[in-house]
């Protein structure tokens, strides 16, 4: 009886350990999520000043009913100067210069785009949302300490007073930051975006998938179903398993040595990145595919063979479809690892400052993890937020990829 009590107690203790471990890991995930989301959500929004602007035809040097081309060519400098002088009449020239620094330095482009989209406002006065400088953005989002002495602040007292005045006049707005999703990297946090790195990641993963998935499946089928067992297959098996454990930077060196230096493929491109990552993903998929091929019951093979199916038909009609769910699970794991990989890309020049959004896999690109790494090194306050926002996007990207593959896995899964 005491013995049984002891055993029951041990069971209880074990249960407690289990619950504690689960709780601990959930806590870590929760802390991580809380951290990233609280820091990153703000990056999806930006602060704007609602500013009344008069689009004077003469200041812009434009004719009546100008074409889009003409507006593009015209300079908005004079217009901005005139409007600022009007808006801040009571301030000195020097002060106006400082006030201008509350705004993003490229508001002329914003005004230009506004006029191109709404040409009817020529010679009219209207309210335009103008992006604030990253410092004001951070102040508005509450990442600013006003008790710091003026000399150590990026924003001086005059600028703060103007900001407060705008707040009182209800001229400050937080709006959805669409630039973040449509533009590439930039030196200015105001206009830096993830579009180039998202496209870079999409192309890289696409190439990685298109290369590794079919190659892995054909290799696994051959090894598992057709090859005669022997020393050779054992050797290949050991090598594949070892390959799965090779540190990822080695694959980057391989890409640098073979793909770039020997084959002369273009540096920093998604094509090379995808090939390198597919080296890395191949063994993972092969191992998963082979074990799921092995798990298909022999009775199914026998049934098809006994009906007069050829070996090929047995494999492609029966065995492979049944091995598909397991293979897809392996593919998810492999691709998820590849998406988050930075080290091998470092070697082939895919960690770089890329402003242009790549339109095909042969253009220079960065991946999202590399972009996150680059931003995290920037000293500007605005980039800290961008980094966390990019991490959120990367996580969402991963979740989407996972859901897609879970969907396909469920679709192919059959019960018997």
């Amino acid at each position: 009886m005491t013995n049984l009590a002891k055993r029951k107690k041990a069971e209880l203790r074990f249960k407690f350990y289990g619950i504690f471990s689960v709780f601990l890991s959930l806590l870590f995930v929760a802390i991580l999520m809380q951290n990233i989301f609280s820091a990153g959500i703000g990056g999806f929004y930006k602060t704007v000043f609602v500013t009344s602007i008069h689009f004077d035809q003469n200041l812009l040097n434009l004719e009546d009913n100008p074409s889009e081309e003409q507006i593009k060519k015209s300079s908005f400098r004079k217009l901005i100067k005139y409007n600022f002088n009007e808006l801040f009449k009571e301030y000195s020239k020097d002060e106006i210069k400082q006030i201008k620094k509350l705004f993003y330095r490229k508001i002329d482009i914003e005004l230009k785009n506004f006029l191109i989209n709404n040409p009817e406002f020529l010679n009219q006065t209207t309210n335009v949302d103008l992006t604030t400088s990253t410092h004001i953005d951070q102040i508005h989002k509450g990442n600013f300490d006003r008790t710091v002495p003026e000399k150590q602040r990026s924003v001086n007292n005059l600028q703060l007073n103007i900001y407060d005045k705008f707040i009182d006049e209800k001229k400050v707005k937080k709006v959805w930051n669409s630039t973040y999703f449509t533009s590439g990297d930039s030196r200015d946090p105001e206009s830096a975006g993830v579009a180039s790195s998202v496209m870079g990641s999409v192309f890289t993963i696409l190439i990685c998938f298109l290369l590794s998935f079919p190659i892995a499946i054909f290799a696994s089928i051959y090894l598992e179903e057709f090859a005669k067992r022997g020393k050779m297959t054992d050797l290949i098996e050991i090598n594949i398993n070892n390959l799965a454990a090779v540190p990822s930077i080695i694959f980057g060196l391989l890409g640098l040595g073979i793909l770039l230096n020997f084959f002369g493929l273009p540096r920093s491109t998604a094509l090379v990145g995808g090939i390198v990552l597919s080296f890395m993903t191949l063994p993972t998929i092969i191992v998963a595919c082979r074990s799921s091929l092995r798990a298909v019951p022999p009775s199914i093979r026998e049934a098809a063979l006994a009906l007069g199916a050829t070996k090929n038909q047995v494999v492609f009609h029966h065995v492979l479809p049944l091995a598909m769910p397991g293979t897809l699970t392996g593919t998810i794991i492999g691709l998820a690892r590849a998406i988050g990989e930075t080290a091998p890309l470092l070697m082939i020049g895919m960690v770089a400052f890329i402003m242009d959004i790549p339109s095909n896999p042969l253009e220079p690109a960065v991946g999202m993890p590399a972009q996150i790494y680059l931003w995290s090194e920037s000293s500007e306050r605005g980039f800290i937020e961008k980094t966390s926002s990019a991490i959120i996007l990367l996580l969402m990207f991963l979740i989407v990829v996972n859901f897609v593959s879970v969907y396909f896995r469920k679709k192919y899964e059959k019960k018997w």
Partner: protein
Amino acid sequence: MVNTIITKNLNVYYGDKQAINDISLHFLKNKVTALIGPSGCGKSTFLRCINRMNDVIDICRVEGTISLNGLDIYSKEIEVEHLREKIGMVFQKPNPFPKSIYDNVAYGPRIHGITDKKDEMDLIVETSLKKAGLYAEVKDRLDDMGTSLSGGQQQRLCIARAIAIKPEVILMDEPCSALDPIATSIIEELITDLKKSYTIIIVTHSMQQAARVSDKTAFFHLGNLIEEGDTSKIFTKPDHQKTNDYITGRFG
């Protein structure tokens, strides 16, 4: 009486181990022949030689001849896929494909290119299921998974699948060993029914089943053929002492 399958001096080895020892047997057309004997006596190995299912086992080696309608099935002229089209097989454990009932039956005709017209295929599926005595039970749910049926139904589905390609011979490897008595009796009735159109060779562990369904019986022991003949004779006055011991349950 026409012989469909004749084996002559058949020896089968798994590596160094001899599994079948010099067996010469003949199987009559449209009759049911039962192969009986204790476990490991080589009945299943013998059966699997007839449609060359042993080909997939690397270490298996076959000597001697097996002929189907006078043609040596191990000769170069015979493609194994064609052979299996003529000699169907039903396994010990029901093994329907994890596909719909319809696709299970239609798979054989499809790969052999018997028909590519939908209505002809429907007819083949219907007649095969009818012959296997399953049609009435599944006619409203042909799209359901074959694996969702009960064990007995699954085995009849496997029989329907085998006869859909119109074989001459059906090999059955203990087809009822995984089934309950009711399902077993349905399959046994079916076998009696099927012998009108097919030659059937059945491996069974159940003496009663052999006595009930077969016309001829062959008794195997340790890879040797001990005795063969009419079922009624084997079960009433066997020539051999070992046969007598086995059918009366004294060993095996």
